[in-house]
């Protein structure tokens, strides 16, 4: 229940507890809400047509039951949870969905969702896997297809002007998120990892302009507060598969660390790259949502040396160098690599990433879990031991 006039971090916490409250109110006012998962669906195209993007997340505390009828247990438990919630009617308020080829299971679930939930509007964006020139061209074509079905659904034209306006507002949100993340740089950080995640989750539950307003309130509040996180020797970055629940970060911070930075999709990955305003806005969008977005599902080639051979360390530097930069900028002294069981995209990265981090001297630990609260207990000892090692 949103308190009238509730603001900043307390509003964030309310939204975190009851994510769909605001969009349901907007629906009652006649707005349409489109669900999506992961960071590849182009949100600007929804905002431009006055549709409210709403990110589909899972529920770590809800046992998966219905999804067993259409998704096997050996696939990503997060997607299974999302599907499960869908089948249980938790997403019935949506007017439609847009899904993208973020990963194999996300792609397949896009089709399964359509079969079993028969949304009034659905579109699938087949985001390419590489940044090849052909892939970039294809990506723009795919966005043109998406534009067509959106126009058909809304009966409105997705003009360049509307799109440009939407890009500006979404870019504004990205800038504000960066500002918030800057406040994690001091020692101790002014805002905790748990609070940051709650803010990120809140942003995925609101129309973009309301999200921007909330961010401004939070930033102002955090700058002035005296009751922020306490000083702890460990300053950690958390990398890996989607985290949409505070349980893991809360556990880590309670053991005795500050999580000051992340490289996850309900986090910096979604916000740290801007869209360039191009004459045809679709060009800037296509480029940003494929090339600029940094995530392991996108295959990037290493520039080959003259011998035509590949150099492993150069490849690692190309793929992971940005993490080294984050570590420097946010003064990180340890990295938590976490991945869900059955997440192939992140699983294959781990040895290479550990090699890279070992090479630049950043202590790290790999944690595997299965997106359930019960799964966290065995991780406690590992995290504590890791902190004892770097302490």
């Amino acid at each position: 229940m949103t308190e009238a006039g509730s603001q900043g971090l307390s509003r964030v916490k309310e939204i975190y507890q009851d994510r769909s409250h605001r969009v349901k109110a907007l629906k009652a006012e006649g707005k349409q809400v489109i669900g999506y998962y992961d960071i590849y669906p182009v949100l600007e195209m929804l905002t431009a047509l006055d549709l409210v993007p709403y990110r589909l997340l899972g529920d770590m505390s809800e046992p998966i039951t219905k999804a067993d009828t259409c998704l096997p247990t050996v696939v990503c438990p997060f997607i299974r949870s999302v599907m499960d919630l869908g089948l249980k009617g938790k997403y019935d308020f949506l007017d439609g969905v847009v899904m993208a080829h973020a990963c194999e299971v996300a792609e397949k679930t896009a089709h399964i969702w359509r079969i079993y939930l028969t949304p009034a509007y659905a579109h699938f964006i087949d985001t390419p896997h590489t940044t090849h020139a052909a892939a970039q061209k294809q990506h723009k074509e795919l966005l043109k297809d998406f534009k067509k079905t959106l126009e058909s659904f809304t009966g409105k034209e997705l003009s360049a002007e509307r799109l440009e306006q939407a890009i500006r507002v979404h870019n504004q949100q990205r800038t504000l998120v960066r500002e918030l993340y800057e406040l994690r740089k001091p020692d101790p950080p002014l805002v905790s990892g748990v609070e940051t995640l709650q803010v990120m989750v809140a942003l995925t539950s609101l129309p973009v302009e309301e999200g921007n307003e909330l961010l401004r309130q939070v930033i102002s509040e955090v700058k002035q507060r005296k009751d922020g996180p306490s000083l702890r020797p460990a300053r950690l970055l958390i990398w890996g598969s989607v985290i949409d629940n505070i349980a893991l970060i809360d556990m880590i911070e309670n053991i005795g660390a500050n999580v000051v930075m992340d490289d996850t999709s309900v986090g910096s990955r979604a916000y740290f790259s801007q869209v360039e305003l191009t004459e045809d806005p679709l060009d800037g969008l296509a480029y940003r949502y494929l090339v600029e977005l940094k995530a392991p599902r996108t295959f990037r080639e290493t520039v080959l040396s003259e011998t035509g051979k590949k150099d492993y360390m150069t490849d690692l530097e190309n793929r992971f160098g940005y993490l080294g930069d984050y570590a420097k900028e946010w003064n990180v002294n340890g990295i938590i690599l976490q991945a869900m069981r059955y997440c192939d995209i992140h699983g294959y990265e781990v040895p290479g990433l550990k090699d890279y981090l070992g090479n630049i001297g950043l202590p790290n630990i790999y944690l595997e879990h299965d997106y359930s609260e019960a799964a966290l207990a065995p991780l406690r000892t590992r995290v504590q031991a890791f902190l004892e090692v770097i302490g």
Partner: protein
Amino acid sequence: MQENSLYFAGIDLGSTMTKVVIIDADEAIRARVESHTGAEHRRLANKVMEQALEQANLSFGEIAYVVATGYGRINVPFADRQITELTCHARGVASFFPSVRTALDIGGQDAKGLKVKDGKLIDFVMNDKCAAGTGRFLEVIASTLSLKVEELGSISLKSKNKVSISSTCTIFAQQEVISRISEGVPLEDIVAGLHSAIASRAVGMLRRLKIEPDVVFTGGVAQNIGVVKAVRENLGCEVFIPQDPLISGAMGAALLGKELTLKALAKGESIQRGERRLAEATFFK
């Protein structure tokens, strides 16, 4: 406070066994107690601590610092600090073998691999999800064969022709054992094969760290001579076994307690103690 009158206690509350060690300022062991953990951690922790104090002829107030470790370490109300068993085992093993670089610890319910440098833990790997490669595996097998766990080691040494147990899973291994028995394979060959299997699983986990000598094998299962032999064969190098493999965790805990105390004293700071509630927790009454 005079340093040479200081005593330090380490309590390792494992999932199967609880161990307490009290050392003096010269690191000599003044008390050593072990007991089955059971379900009531707090009551048990109090009980073994009292037994240890009695053994050492000390009162609780004479203990300068208590460190709790192990699975149930948060259930020790009289501890001043809780430190993970990974860090404590590294410290304890290093006190037995100062040149240790890699340690394998196989307990009742889990297995750990430790990289150690100058007595400090620098990296680790854990298996606490899967029974194969832990003491639990041996218990299940002993039960299947109607033997006592303690007998398994000596039986395996009699084997001249051990069978290969290919299953990586305890349940499947059980089935394999039953098949082998019905085929008439000698008991000692089956048992030796099983010891190879548990060693293979545990060493497989250990190989995720870079194995460097000296290698130490500790924990309850290190008391099984058959597994020790199998681990040595699998690693193909010298493997050292502590005289008292059960207490490396508690020993390490006590030593870390000493370190923390001396550090505080050297800085002229007061020792950060816990609440120290040795009295029985009321809600268990």
